[in-house]
């Protein structure tokens, strides 16, 4: 009950006009980003990051959160109306959404997707609120040794699950660690890898690299994406969700939301995998599995509930442990750091108003998106036809101004562009960008923790396995590292995860 009271206070705080306006702005931008083929939630959050950081406090994170879950709503529009996934988490929506549109039921499919997204979001927020407090309370007992072990566990999961080639996942992680070393050494103050440039003495700003690696790289890789397919016809009245469909899809909604949430919590898995698993499960337990893929509302409801729920599940490791489990939450972590907050269990004890106001803004944004999606669908469908020759220069200009505004530095803008170019090469060669960016975020923390612990123990490595939680986590890390070997022996393949969400 106390948690519900805190959430209610948070919702009231999020009704502040400034915070609410930023939530809506983020949600609308997210809808657009989600609808545009080629750009996904990570790119959207990365593009908005420098701009949102200027809003400060709760408004900044409310805006970034709005982009994240807004894009989950928006992706379905393109999937249903054009048969092209707006973003990776809406790939499964195409399977039944587009056939429904071809049968003249585009409005019904869109209405179902909006309702499913809302239900998934609602249950996801409930899970986020219910689990955050106990997990953060438990994490408060973690010392530097346990945090080191937890980071190793999360990073190994990300590297193993994040891409097709595990070796490349670890190379990307190591490159992220190296980027995190650039600047003055945190303990001896020795400059490392700065090439004598004063601009690099403070290290590479994570947000600048993230904006390039996810935002600009996504744009650079979709320069030729121009929509030239006709949009399926629908009427505004047909968009309104039907009670009969809600009743008919109740189990798919529940199963998709619950599965999506728990898959979302796992580092390195994310919303795309959640939708695939949810769709597969819905089909498997259905009495009429042969109807899936032919255009039925159940096939739209299951993945749409799952991807929205997963987006909130993915925020649990970020807010409670300070360890982002996906690319999008990693970029959101950049937002928290830029406004002067360190995500982790202390956030709940030192800034409870902030945390609950942010969660409150999620609840408001989720509800507002139902109306925004219904109202803006015609506009978003029209926006899909804006040629990239007009749209991308505008988006790139916003990114350039936003990145410049972080430190009033043109050097940062140049670094972002270089990171964008590097992002193309990484993506094309299957080097996952998520471990790289998390290596950059967590590498300096990990190095500091390891070195401080070793200084205290006078170089005794056994200190890392003396405490039971740390030992358990290190054993779990070893098991995770062996996953690819087990899968190979069993002849199974992994589901490619969050990397495609960019």
């Amino acid at each position, binding site marked *: 009950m106390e948690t519900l009271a805190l959430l209610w206070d948070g919702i009231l705080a999020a009704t502040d006009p400034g915070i609410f306006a930023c939530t809506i702005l983020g949600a609308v931008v997210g809808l657009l980003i989600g609808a545009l083929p080629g750009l996904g939630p990570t790119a959207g959050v990365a593009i908005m990051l420098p701009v949102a950081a200027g809003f400060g406090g709760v408004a900044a994170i409310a805006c970034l959160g709005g982009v994240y879950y807004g894009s989950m709503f928006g992706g379905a529009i393109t999937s249903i109306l054009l048969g092209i996934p707006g973003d990776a988490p809406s790939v499964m929506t195409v399977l039944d959404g587009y056939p429904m549109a071809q049968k003249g039921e585009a409005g019904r499919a869109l209405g179902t997707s909006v309702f499913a997204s809302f239900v998934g979001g609602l249950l996801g927020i409930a899970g986020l609120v219910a689990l955050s407090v106990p997990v953060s309370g438990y994490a408060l007992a973690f010392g530097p040794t346990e945090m080191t072990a937890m980071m190793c566990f999360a990073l190994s999961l990300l590297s193993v699950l994040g891409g097709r080639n595990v*070796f490349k996942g670890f190379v990307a992680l190591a490159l992220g660690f190296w980027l995190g070393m650039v600047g003055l050494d945190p303990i001896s103050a020795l400059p490392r890898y700065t090439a004598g440039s004063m601009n690099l003495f403070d290290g590479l700003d994570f947000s600048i690299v993230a904006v390039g690696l996810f935002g600009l790289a996504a744009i650079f890789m979709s320069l030729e994406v121009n929509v030239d397919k006709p949009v399926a016809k629908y009427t505004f009245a047909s968009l309104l969700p039907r009670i009969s469909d809600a009743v008919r899809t109740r189990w798919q909604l529940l199963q998709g939301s619950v599965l999506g949430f728990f898959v979302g919590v796992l580092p390195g898995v994310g919303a795309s995998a959640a939708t695939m698993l949810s769709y597969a499960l819905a089909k498997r337990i259905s009495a009429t599995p042969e109807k899936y893929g032919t255009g039925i509302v159940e096939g739209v409801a299951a993945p749409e509930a799952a991807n929205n729920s997963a987006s909130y599940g993915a925020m649990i490791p970020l807010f409670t442990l300070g360890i982002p489990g996906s690319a999008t939450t990693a970029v959101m972590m950049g937002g928290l750091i830029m406004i002067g907050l360190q995500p982790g269990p202390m956030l709940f004890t030192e800034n409870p108003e902030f945390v609950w106001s942010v969660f409150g803004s999620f609840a408001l944004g989720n509800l507002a998106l139902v109306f925004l999606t219904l109202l803006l669908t015609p506009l978003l469908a029209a926006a899909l036809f804006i*040629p990239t020759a007009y749209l991308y*220069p505008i988006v790139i200009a916003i990114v350039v101004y936003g990145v410049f505004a972080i430190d009033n530095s043109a050097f940062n803008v140049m670094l972002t562009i270089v990171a964008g170019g590097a992002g193309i090469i990484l993506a094309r060669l299957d080097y996952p960008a998520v471990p790289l960016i998390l290596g950059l975020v967590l590498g300096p923390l990990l190095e500091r923790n390891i070195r401080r612990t070793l200084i205290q123990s006078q170089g005794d490595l056994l200190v890392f396995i003396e405490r039971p939680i740390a030992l358990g986590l290190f054993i779990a890390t070893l098991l995770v590292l062996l996953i690819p070997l087990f899968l190979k022996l069993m002849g199974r393949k992994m589901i490619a995860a969050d990397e495609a969400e960019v």
Partner: protein
Amino acid sequence: MSIQRLDQLIAALLVIFGLWLVYTGIGYGAMQGTTPGAGLLPIIVGSAIALLSAVNLYRALGGLEKLGAGMSGREAAKAAAVIVALLVAVWAIPYLGMTIATMLAMAGIGLVLRTESGPRFFVRLAAVSVLTPIVLLLLFQNLLGVPIPKSVFGF
């Protein structure tokens, strides 16, 4: 260059890069008595990059790595042109100011991405390229208080 050849090249470069990291790490100092030095992590990370990239190089040379089609020459050329346009604009900021540099970069990028011809395209692109930086100038400078670099023309 084919995507497979690029994969081989990058893997080979990463092996060299990893070894260089180990070398620089030794220079920074791995241990000072029982205390880990600034070079410890570079040595570990460099070794990992060199070793894992050697595996990747072996896989790439042996044709074990299955990659997508990669970018077409046209896509790659467009991406390169956009990146160059942006880098030139950033370089020109101290001379032209951010507003004019952005206007020129936007026009350049729009021309690179052009899919339609005729005067209507140029009018629209000019409008987008001129209006967007002005709106951004007002937003960032006046609303958010960011000191946007100016040209000799005063904006």
